[in-house]
């Protein structure tokens, strides 16, 4: 066997050009498949990262009405039967193994009535937050201070801005200590926070676009106790849980959703809490990208078939060329099986080499795709090994006919030809 492999290499080497051209079909086929698989894997990882992403493992548990997120824009919109999250519910959530932290907050996603002198904020959200909001969602203090226990207890009209809001309202001015207007009430700015997640500034796909959009929105925060000062009522809260790990996110979301929905009045049938299922979303998007790419793999497989036929063709020529060699070998005692094995090995070695070159070319192609179009790629070792084994199989399948032909040659006819 080893001897056969050595002889095959010798044969391939002595016909370098022909061998390379024979392999070319296999090389192209395998290279396309490897680059496609690398792109699929890269895209999948990117989808997962950007959706679940930023590594802070937070899950939004928001209110939905008839399948859409419910937002409150005016005082009259408040839905009935949805209480604020009580301290008991909060500690029940915190007892879950999968949950590291939780925050509940009221939110309006319109910025009408938020001013500093003549400046307003065009888009963003104002939130009435509890003490664990910044830790859970992922903000750090930039200047000033965060809210104290007393701010809420004594209903102090204080406000914290994120960097976008501070920029929009105050520009270069230091906002700390300044008084601004929220829904016709004066609030004093005590701090500026910034988001911990850094989004890439280059946008190459839709999910990065949304991430960038979100990060451009302004955030204005007041203590949740002060919410009714500006907006008249305590409103239903949104919840964000921080899971212990990415794998815990789904479980944490589902459990928290259940706990929160149990607090809603049974008469309220239209508005319910629902956890974002990011993994599910990621899987859906991965499925979509895999489906398109699977078709590409089928197309690439056709070139493998063509390559295989090329191998068969050359092997047939090679058998004819080496008729007298085959006859001599039979005359000096080679069995049929020995000849068959020799030619099959040669075909398999040829296509395996093609496969290896194809994998190398595919990895190269994937890098080029990555550089040129920015699509994420990730090399799949398992796929590469399978590709080489598969090309070996192609060699054996398409080498079979020529090898059988060689093994069945009549030694006399074979020797006579010269």
């Amino acid at each position, binding site marked *: 066997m080893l001897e056969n492999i050595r002889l095959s290499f010798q044969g391939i080497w002595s016909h370098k050009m022909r061998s390379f051209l024979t392999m070319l079909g296999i090389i192209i086929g395998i290279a396309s498949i490897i680059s496609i698989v690398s792109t699929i894997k890269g895209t999948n990882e990117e989808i997962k990262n950007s959706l679940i992403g930023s590594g802070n493992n937070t899950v939004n548990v928001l209110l939905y009405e008839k399948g859409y997120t419910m937002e409150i824009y005016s005082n009259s919109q408040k839905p009935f039967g949805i209480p604020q999250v009580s301290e008991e519910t909060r500690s029940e959530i915190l007892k879950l193994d999968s949950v590291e932290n939780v925050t509940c907050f009221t939110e309006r996603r319109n910025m009408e009535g938020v001013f500093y002198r003549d400046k307003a904020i065009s888009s963003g959200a104002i939130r009435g937050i509890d003490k664990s909001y910044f830790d859970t969602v992922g903000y750090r203090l930039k200047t000033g201070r965060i809210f104290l226990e007393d701010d809420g207890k004594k209903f102090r009209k204080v406000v914290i801005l994120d960097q976008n809001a501070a920029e929009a309202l105050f520009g270069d001015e230091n906002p700390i200590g300044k008084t601004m207007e929220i829904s016709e009430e004066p609030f004093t700015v005590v701090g500026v926070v910034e988001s911990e997640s850094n989004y890439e500034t280059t946008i190459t796909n839709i999910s990065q676009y949304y991430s960038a959009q979100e990060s451009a929105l302004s955030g204005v925060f007041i203590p949740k106790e002060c919410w009714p000062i500006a907006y008249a009522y305590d409103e239903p809260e949104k919840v964000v849980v921080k899971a212990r790990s990415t794998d815990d996110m789904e479980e944490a979301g589902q459990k928290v959703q259940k706990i929160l929905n149990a607090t809603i009045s049974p008469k309220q049938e239209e508005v319910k809490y629902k956890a974002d299922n990011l993994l599910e979303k990621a899987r859906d998007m991965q499925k979509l990208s895999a489906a398109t790419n699977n078709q590409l793999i089928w197309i690439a497989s056709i070139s493998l078939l063509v390559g295989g036929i090329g191998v068969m063709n050359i092997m047939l020529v090679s058998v004819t060329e080496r008729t*007298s060699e085959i006859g001599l*070998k039979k*005359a*000096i*005692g080679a069995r*049929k*099986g020995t000849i068959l094995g020799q030619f099959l090995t040669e075909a398999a070695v040829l296509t395996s080499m093609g496969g290896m070159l194809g994998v190398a070319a595919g990895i190269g192609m994937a890098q080029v795709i990555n550089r040129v179009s920015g699509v994420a790629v990730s090399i799949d070792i398992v796929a590469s090994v399978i590709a080489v084994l598969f090309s070996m199989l192609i060699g054996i399948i398409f080498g079979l006919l020529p090898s059988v032909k060689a093994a069945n040659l009549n030694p006399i006819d074979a*020797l006579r030809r010269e």
Partner: protein
Amino acid sequence: MILKLDHIYKDYIQGKMTVPVLKDVCLHVEEGEYVAIMGPSGSGKSTLMNIIGCLDRPTQGTYELAGQDVLALNEKKLADVRLNRIGFVFQNFQLLPRMSALDNVALPLVYAGVRKRVRRERAREALVRVGLEDRTGFNPTQLSGGQKQRVAIARAMVNTPKILLADEPTGALDSKSSKQVMELFAQLNEEGVTVVMITHDPGIAGHAKRIMDIFDGEISRHGEVFR
């Protein structure tokens, strides 16, 4: 008796015609004999040689090789007979061009499943015996005709077969090389190898101990052992 062929017929089918090539050929060779079979081209001597060498089957007749009915053997067993009992030498040498002389000689040992180290050792010994110990690494293209034929003889004898079959072994050689080859054959015969050689050259046939004539598919002279 090492070769015992009786009433051998061989027909070739050409289109709708059946052409008889061998007609009732009987050939008996004792162990240790040195036989030359002479005949003009088309006389059927090569066909007879192929039948003796188990490369071809007769249409009719019996063939016992060292007492064994080889016509009853399957293809696998016949390959083993060719491997172990018969050494072949051809007019055009039939060396594999991409292999060194040593690898060419070692080829039958590969088929016999001999380990690589032993194989190289035995192939080297065989080359020493034909006087080519300094040419082991050469490719056939780097050797002269006489040297090529001696490599071929080393290959034929590397498995120590009892029978050496040679088909016009000097047909492509000059007289000096021919003489060397004939000396080798004589030496092998001295050592007990049965030699059967086909030739149309009476000078070459004269080296044998018995000369048979074949003409038009029939043995016309069985010859006496005259040496």
